[in-house]
């Protein structure tokens, strides 16, 4: 069977996801401006420890080999280590994303002692100024301290996870050097206009010239740099980047959110892409195998306006979430189409008219009111 027909098989969906993201909580100590899940405050409907374990039992029975845990900041959950250990002991490896705030010396040692565990530290700038502008004041120091602690504890190869913005494209080589210094693996992913990112995407997403830079850089570094296959829209530049060249939403990928809602992927927290809830009868399995949404995503998708473009086979029309949250039709070009085919459509979509992310757990903004000058 050729690689191409394997991709066709994957598009028809798998019996269980191979890339399942589970956001454990909407609570977070940070307020990143591009947060995919608009996290900040805990949701009182959050799954309990017992409910979370029941899901892990189900994932074990489905032979889900590993899960990606995120949030929010997953380490704020009091049962974080309990769930981690329960998962690993059931044969489900864990990769979790964290801002590193809670990885002190003791936690680093505890993590280093566990098997089948990957850690992904989020960092969006090699320097504090670049990083903290997006992730909040002090977050760069927080990440570096966590990486120092992991290194000191001999954790082994953790990952440094970078969301590529127009402000850090020029730092890709430095990120790679930083990862090499820590014996870590670099992972760079695409900025999506999801969650709070819907509000900041227009200012933060790489320019078209920078997209070419990212593509060339990725080609040069090949499989040594992880991408979560998130840059396949760049394949329209020419040679295909390593990885599955397809949208995996509802086919090989899905998201379980902190309250048990199941979405097609981590970048589409919106009712339109909600397939069900793990608390429903039949649990996660039934949602994965039978939900109308997932079954429809496994049907052949129309190329729509992209059908006449010679690059469609290469880029597959790009990312569904990126189109949705910028107000573009799903069967047309990606907002970052490298041929510029979405530029005109994007320019006529009024800001604020695109669909709003489904849930917002951002912390309320505290307005510090400046005293008006006397007599004003």
């Amino acid at each position, binding site marked *: *069977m050729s690689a191409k027909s*394997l991709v066709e*098989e994957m598009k028809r969906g798998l*019996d269980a996801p*191979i890339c399942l993201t589970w956001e454990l909580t909407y609570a977070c100590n940070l307020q990143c401006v591009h947060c995919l899940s608009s996290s900040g405050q805990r949701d009182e409907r959050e799954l309990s420890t017992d409910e979370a374990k029941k899901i892990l039992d189900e994932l074990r029975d489905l*032979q889900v*080999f590993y899960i990606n845990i995120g949030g929010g900041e997953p380490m704020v959950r009091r049962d974080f280590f309990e769930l981690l250990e329960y998962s690993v002991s059931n*044969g489900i*490896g864990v990769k979790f994303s964290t801002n590193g705030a809670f990885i002190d010396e003791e936690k680093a040692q505890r993590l280093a002692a566990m098997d089948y565990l*990957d850690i992904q530290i989020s960092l969006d700038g090699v320097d504090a100024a670049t990083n903290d502008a997006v992730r909040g004041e002090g977050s760069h120091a927080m990440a570096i301290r966590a990486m120092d602690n992991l290194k000191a504890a001999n954790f082994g190869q953790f990952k440094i996870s970078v969301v590529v913005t127009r402000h850090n494209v020029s730092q890709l080589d430095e990120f790679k050097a930083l990862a090499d210094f820590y014996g870590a693996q670099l992972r760079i992913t695409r900025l999506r206009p999801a969650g709070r990112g819907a509000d900041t995407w227009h200012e933060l997403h790489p320019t078209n010239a920078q997209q070419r830079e990212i593509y060339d850089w990725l080609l040069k570094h090949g499989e040594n740099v992880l991408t979560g296959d998130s840059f396949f829209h760049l394949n329209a530049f020419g040679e295909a980047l390593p990885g599955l060249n397809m949208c995996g939403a509802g086919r090989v990928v899905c998201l379980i959110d902190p309250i048990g809602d199941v979405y097609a992927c981590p970048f589409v927290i919106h009712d339109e892409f909600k397939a069900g809830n793990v608390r429903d009868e039949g649990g996660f399995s039934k949602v994965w195998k039978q939900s109308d949404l997932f079954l429809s995503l496994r049907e052949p998708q129309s190329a729509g306006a992209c059908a006449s473009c010679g690059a469609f086979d290469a880029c597959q029309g790009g990312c569904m979430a990126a189109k949705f949250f910028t107000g573009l039709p799903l069967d047309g070009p990606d907002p970052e189409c490298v041929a510029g085919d979405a530029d005109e459509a994007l320019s006529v979509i009024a800001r604020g008219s695109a669909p709003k992310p489904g849930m917002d757990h951002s912390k309320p903004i505290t307005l510090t009111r400046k005293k008006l000058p006397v007599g004003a």
Partner: protein
Amino acid sequence: MTIALASVLEIHPQVAVRPEAFGALAYHYGNRRLIFLKHPDVVTVVQALHDHPDVQTTLSACGVSQDRWPSFIAALTSLETSEVVREREITR
């Protein structure tokens, strides 16, 4: 390692195999690689390796016709490289 009809193989103990419509997914918990077994017959053979003394006996037992043996040897060689299968120690 070159795989031959006389090779004695088993699924790597750190590998889990999950059947899928196209064949199966194999996951190696050690190197964290996901490998695709792209034909249901390859899956049957891989899963039967442990129950038979060598590759040739396994292929016969799984009803794989002799003209297909070379392609199965090639598949097993590639699976050995990716550590989905490994040489089995013979216990006497």
